[in-house]
């Protein structure tokens, strides 16, 4: 079951990635070039996904948007994972009040609506890619931190860690050499599961007009554009970018949960021994 999900997810993702990378490259058309004579055309052989209100080809532009959104999401996922893994590992190893304080901070960050923090940050640092990425990374590390912390806590009592400590290894060496590598699979799964959130976050901010500037294609800016085209009957401006967003989200979620089962299975087998 998990394997089938993994295969389907990876296949869809590979297809989307190929589409996102190859189409703008092969088409040789700049997705930002406007052609008002061809504005708001329904899908046809010339424009597979139709055109938007500025006459930009949506087949190319959706690909470009997908690429931007996925890239931003990937960077955010990596950043959140690194932050989360470090905080989680340090918290677990330090223990005591440091641990308690860190966990309260995690609770605190989770208590605030993430998008709201994103809106505030992005509003104050308008149009900056760094602000978008920071606003996502700074709010999404908590999940990874929790997972890594509990993983490290459960690993700390294993024999090979005891052996390393008895062998005179320092605390940080133990973390670096023994605990973090062992917690890595879990952290990776968490990172993959973060991706859809990051895609949503970015596209939501852009949709609200707070993310990327409108001419820069991202799934969010495309959907924002669709909002006005819709009123004039341009259903295709909504359908194709939304399809890209949904496919990407579901495929990543499938890969994530497939991976999670993979990681969880050997552990369950271990537990029954």
């Amino acid at each position: 079951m998990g394997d089938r999900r993994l295969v389907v997810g990876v296949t869809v993702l590979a297809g989307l990635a190929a589409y996102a990378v190859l189409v703008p490259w092969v088409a040789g058309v700049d997705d930002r070039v406007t052609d008002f004579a061809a504005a708001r055309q329904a899908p046809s052989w010339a424009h597979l996904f139709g055109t938007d209100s500025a006459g930009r080809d949506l087949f190319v532009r959706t690909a470009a948007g997908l690429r931007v959104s996925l890239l931003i999401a990937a960077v955010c996922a990596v950043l959140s994972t690194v932050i989360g893994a470090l905080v989680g590992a340090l918290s677990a190893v330090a223990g005591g009040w440091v641990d308690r304080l860190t966990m309260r901070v995690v609770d605190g960050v989770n208590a605030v609506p993430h998008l709201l923090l994103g809106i505030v940050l992005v509003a104050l640092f308008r149009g900056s890619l760094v602000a978008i990425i920071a606003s996502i990374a700074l709010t999404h590390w908590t999940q990874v931190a929790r997972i890594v912390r509990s993983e490290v806590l459960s690993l700390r009592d294993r024999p090979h860690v005891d052996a390393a400590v008895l062998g005179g290894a320092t605390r940080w060496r133990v973390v670096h050499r023994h605990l973090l590598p062992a917690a890595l699979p879990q952290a990776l799964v968490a990172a993959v599961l973060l991706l859809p959130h990051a895609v949503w976050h970015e596209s939501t901010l852009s949709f609200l007009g707070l993310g990327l500037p409108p001419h820069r294609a991202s799934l969010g800016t495309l959907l924002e554009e669709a909002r006005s085209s819709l009123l004039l009957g341009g259903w295709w401006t909504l359908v194709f970018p939304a399809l890209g967003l949904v496919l990407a989200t579901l495929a990543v979620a499938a890969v994530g949960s497939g991976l999670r089962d993979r990681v969880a299975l050997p552990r369950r087998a271990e537990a029954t021994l």
Partner: protein
Amino acid sequence: MARRRLLFAVPVVLAVSVGVFAAAAASPFDPLAGYLGDRYLTASQEAQAKLAEQLGTDRPWFEQYLSWLGHLVTGDLGTSRSFGQPVADVLAERLPWTLLLVAVSLVIAVVLALGLGTWTAARRGGWVDRLVTPGCLLLQGLPPFVVALGAVALFGIGLAWLPVAGLTDAGADLSVGQVARHLVLPALVLALSQLPWLLLNVRQSLLRALTEDHVTGARSRGLAERTVVARHALPTALLPFVTLLGARLPELVVGAVLVEEVFSWPGLAQAVVTSATELDFPLLAFLTLLTTVAVLVGSLIADVAYVLLDPRVAADG
């Protein structure tokens, strides 16, 4: 327990508000630009310096923060530039609409989640289950604003059944019938955006509960299946649901922001977007704080409800 949650809430609220001011100080944006608008480019240096002194924006950010906090405590919320009226008035005008929208959608979502979640778990593999469960998984992949746009396209424009913007038709008076008609789509979309998580949670915990000892016990006693599900499986399965409701509150707020924006619903969530795009700092700071407090209070209520529902927790103190 409640006291501990309150003690936790205070530093979170403080940290969020300090964070907002610190971020504002670090931002390249000059608060005067927001205040002056187009005149920012034409106003003289001296005039700007004078204004900055008047507004206090020349002081270090934590001094500004402390004076803002002082005003807040005394009930002075400042003035919103983008709406051209005191923040308190914006609040009074818009909060009821947001509460109406959120409350109606929450009720719809909870009722649907409980009903369909129970049905799909009790008749696992039946046609309802085979329809609803994949539907939920698909919905989980759709951000609220895509659902909202889809609803606008389908029901508002394609079928033209329902209005898609505002509280009333253009020029119409504010009446219950008007508002109700305009509420249908936003409320349904907001409910739908939260439904998959709630429904799948009910279904999952009910499926788990159905295999537990106390349910087998009730069944072996000869009770009707309806009684077994409704009075033995469901009560224990609802405990995680209450916790989830609390935990989903931030997502509900996010959903409200998007739904109000798409449907031009004149609520507070839309004001968040407006104040952010126009850098209306007094309003933005206050709304951030208010949302955080609302979410914290909401999760506190969820915790209290949990304690009331589960006698075991109350016994542990």
